[in-house]
């Protein structure tokens, strides 16, 4: 369920709330809206008393009540912000008109300090837009007065919100034409609406937001966290727990840029960030830093993952620990940059020439992003390998209550650099993990050279020898396979033997879990299995799969995990695809499950 609140200043501005409701209705959703006017109708605009607002909740499934908290709040000025912020859920989207946060605006709203600077809004996804300015520009051609022009700004905001919730503009435009008698006013409002919508498209704002089912939370201390924040915190935590200083090199790309923005702030954790000239440079710098002994990580989204593929292969060959965060978005090609998808799994698995196996992990919720990053670093450092972590545009921007972890309970990631010159070879391996020696520049006596050419399995020197090559290909493969032994067994949610198993990965978790919870409560013979390790698979996966008659794999792609399971386990998985840049609805999972159970 999604809900929007756009505080208004004047009663006359109500219509756009209404409008939004009705386009939602037209889009086939149930809608409840609770207009909520200020007591004093003509309170001076910008003062706390002058704030009016309307609430708007909509959902594609049945609605029993308006949401307790708002998911989106549009605040046209500090007063509106102050009056309504309490209703916005942590991690909700806060759209602010940045043109109205001047000193006297703040004074009117009785803010002593600018809330944009105190950090008090840190837990929301703040989107600052100079709405007044943009609106005035947009309506310029109508020749309206400054005053009349500025009035159109709510329609600008509505345009942004419409885009955010994927609503068409036409009905509202028709309505505007009907409603406003003066054609230049109608024109202006319509222009502002369109401008807001365009703005959201142009600057790659985010589409649909994700609602993670609020399970009964274990007791403890909580905060709100988005996927992007969690990825960033995970990196910093790994740095603290490994004693290695973090180097994050990245090239901006929606929806991964926020990780860079977050990490760039943590200089007092010794975090170094590089905004590289392109994605190839970004990962190359990461690998270079790993050679130097830094905690290396790079982040990107689909098109950038393509560009990094050659270098990922290089990290496989040089066996250097580097973590690659890939925040999936709608593809192929430029695709739908602001939408979420799970279509990069096979690219993560196989998107490099040669036999170049890489562990692949996927986060399931915003908070889980934190743990998946830590796990990625654990594997990278322990096995001397690049690791790919998959998130998506949904997780990146969604937020959820997150149990604050105890720093000391986090895994100890301290690596052991090799320092002993006695019989040193960079390609000597730990017999258990098959990880090679990590010796970093600055260590006397261990001078050595790494590169992308095949290496002798013992000395690490360049070798063109046929049998050695085969040995090395198999070694690299075996090393990744052995990670299996280092992973906890999978746990089935529900009976371990049943008619139907729903296997999920990534952000599909939310809707699948909700659906299965419901269905299990209703005593349907369905279980669930969620995978966070996609390469290698956990050891008991084969056994689990064998215990079910049918296996359903819902994915926001054309069946990529499904294909992997089929190839590996020869099980006749049933792929269930959705490719609309938004998560499955609980009801969609539900009906699919019922269909499969019924058809038995």
């Amino acid at each position, binding site marked *: 369920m999604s809900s929007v609140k756009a505080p208004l200043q004047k009663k006359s501005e109500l219509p756009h709330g209404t409008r939004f409701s009705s386009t939602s209705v037209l889009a086939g959703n149930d809608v409840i809206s609770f207009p909520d006017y200020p007591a004093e109708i003509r309170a001076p605009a910008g003062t706390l008393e002058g704030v009016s607002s309307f609430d708007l909740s909509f959902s594609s499934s049945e609605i029993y009540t308006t949401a307790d908290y708002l998911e989106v709040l549009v605040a046209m000025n500090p007063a509106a912000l102050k009056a309504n912020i309490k209703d916005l859920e942590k991690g909700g989207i806060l759209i602010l008109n940045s043109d109205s946060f001047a000193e006297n605006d703040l004074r009117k709203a009785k803010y002593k300090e600018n809330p944009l600077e105190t950090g008090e809004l840190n837990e929301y996804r703040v989107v600052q837009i100079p709405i007044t300015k943009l609106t005035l520009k947009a309506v310029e051609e109508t020749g309206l007065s400054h005053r009349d022009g500025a009035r159109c700004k709510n329609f600008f905001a509505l345009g942004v919100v419409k885009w955010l919730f994927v609503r068409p503009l036409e009905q509202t435009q028709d309505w505007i034409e009907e409603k406003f008698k003066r054609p230049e006013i109608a024109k202006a409002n319509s222009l502002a609406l369109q401008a807001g919508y365009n703005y959201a498209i142009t600057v790659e704002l985010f589409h649909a937001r994700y609602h993670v089912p609020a399970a009964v939370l274990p007791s403890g201390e909580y905060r709100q966290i988005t996927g992007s924040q969690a990825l960033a915190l995970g990196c910093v935590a790994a740095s603290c727990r490994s004693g290695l200083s973090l180097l994050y090199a990245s090239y901006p790309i929606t929806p991964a840029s926020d990780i860079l923005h977050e990490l760039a702030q*943590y200089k*007092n954790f010794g975090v170094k960030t590089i905004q590289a000239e392109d994605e190839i440079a970004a990962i*190359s710098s990461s690998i270079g830093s790993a050679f130097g002994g830094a905690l290396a990580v790079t982040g990107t989204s689909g098109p950038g993952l393509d560009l990094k593929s050659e270098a990922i292969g290089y990290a496989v060959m040089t066996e250097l620990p580097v973590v690659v965060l890939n925040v999936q978005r709608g593809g192929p090609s430029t695709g739908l940059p602001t939408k979420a998808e799970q279509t990069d799994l096979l690219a993560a698995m196989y998107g490099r020439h040669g036999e170049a196996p890489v562990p692949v992990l996927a986060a399931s919720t915003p908070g889980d992003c934190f743990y998946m990053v830590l796990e990625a670093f654990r594997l990278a450092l322990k096995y001397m390998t690049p690791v790919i972590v998959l998130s998506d545009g949904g997780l990146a921007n969604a937020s959820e209550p997150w149990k604050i972890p105890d720093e000391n309970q986090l895994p100890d990631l301290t690596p052991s650099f090799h320092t002993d010159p006695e019989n040193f070879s960079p390609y000597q391996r730990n017999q258990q993990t098959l990880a090679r020696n990590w010796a970093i520049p600055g260590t006397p006596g*261990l001078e050595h050279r790494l590169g992308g050419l095949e290496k002798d399995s013992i000395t690490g020197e360049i070798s063109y020898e046929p049998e050695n090559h085969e040995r090395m290909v198999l070694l690299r493969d075996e090393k990744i396979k052995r990670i299996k032994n280092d992973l906890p067994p999978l746990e089935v949610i529900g009976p371990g033997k049943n008619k139907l198993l729903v296997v999920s990965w990534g952000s599909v978790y939310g809707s699948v879990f909700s659906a299965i919870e419901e269905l299990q409560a209703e005593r349907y013979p369905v279980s669930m299995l969620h995978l966070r390790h996609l390469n290698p698979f956990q050891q008991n996966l084969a056994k689990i799969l064998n215990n079910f008659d049918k296996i359903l794999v819902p994915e926001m792609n054309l069946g990529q995990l499904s294909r992997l399971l089929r190839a590996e386990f020869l099980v006749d998985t049933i792929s269930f695809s959705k490719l609309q840049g938004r998560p499955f609805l609980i009801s969609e999972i539900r009906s699919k499950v019922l269909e499969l159970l019924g058809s038995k």
Partner: protein
Amino acid sequence: MNIPVKPLSSVPLTKADFVSDQTVRWCPGCGDYSILANVQKIMPELNIPKENIVFVSGIGCSSRFPYYMDTYGLHTLHGRAPAFATGLKVARPDLNVWLVTGDGDGLSIGGNQLLHMLRRNLDVNVLLFNNRIYGLTKGQYSPTSEQGKVTKSTPFGSPDMPLNPMLFALSAGATFIARTFDVDAKGMQEIFKEAAKHKGTSFVEIYQNCNIFNDGTFAPIYERSVREERILRLKHGEPFIFGKNRNKGIRLNGLKPEVVELGNGTNENDLLKHDQYSKDSTLANLLSSFDFPAFPVPMGVLRQVRNSIYGEIIEQQIKTQLEEKGEGKLTDLLRGTHVWTN
């Protein structure tokens, strides 16, 4: 980070300390050999423990260089050495980093990486082996090949204009640019040492003969018999004089440089003087554009200025933040600004 640190070795190092145990595999007669020898030669003089030295390279004959140096080394991807070096140097400002690249590696596929490293003024020393050809892939034309060059990939002549590495570097704001050539041991050594001393990116172009696929490409310029007529040895503060008999010079006519004979009423004072440290890049630009046969080819340091350095700014920002906020506490960071209890 736990970097094991050893005090500067008390025993002075020698050239032999920098020779690795790997068989050098360039073609006999390749210009790369002498570059290698001269780099190894000057290394001990830098007085840096060899474990703190890293050679980074891309792909190409020239890029095999790191294997032959008994230091740390990273033979990376075609064209990407500058980016690898950036990560390494930012992570480890304590290291002394050298970058070896070729005209194809650095200026064709790696043009963007090199450009941006120069712009950032990363504190590394770049040696660009310019042989005007792709050696490793057996003889296709490169971005520094003359227009019209007949190669395997251009049987009827290459259609594009060559890039000028010096101008390229200069336009990116390079703070140290120099040129030398593979048969000039003394010149190379001087320049390598200057480059090593410079703070910020030192960019050195080395004319290198590929005797297999582009033999003699620089002979018209640096062959012993003509060399002094065709190269201009740069010395800071000195006028531009060249010729075996030091009888020719370069003078400015408006903005146009011209070669003049000395004597006959023209003397040293009429000539342009080298100002290696000029903030202004006009002179360096002029020098960079001198090319055979119209002008003698400048050898030496064309420009050397001080500018801010990428990694240092990052270090400084960290220092400032540490001073302002104190060392970050993970627990505080994890808790964020708004915590509630369930």
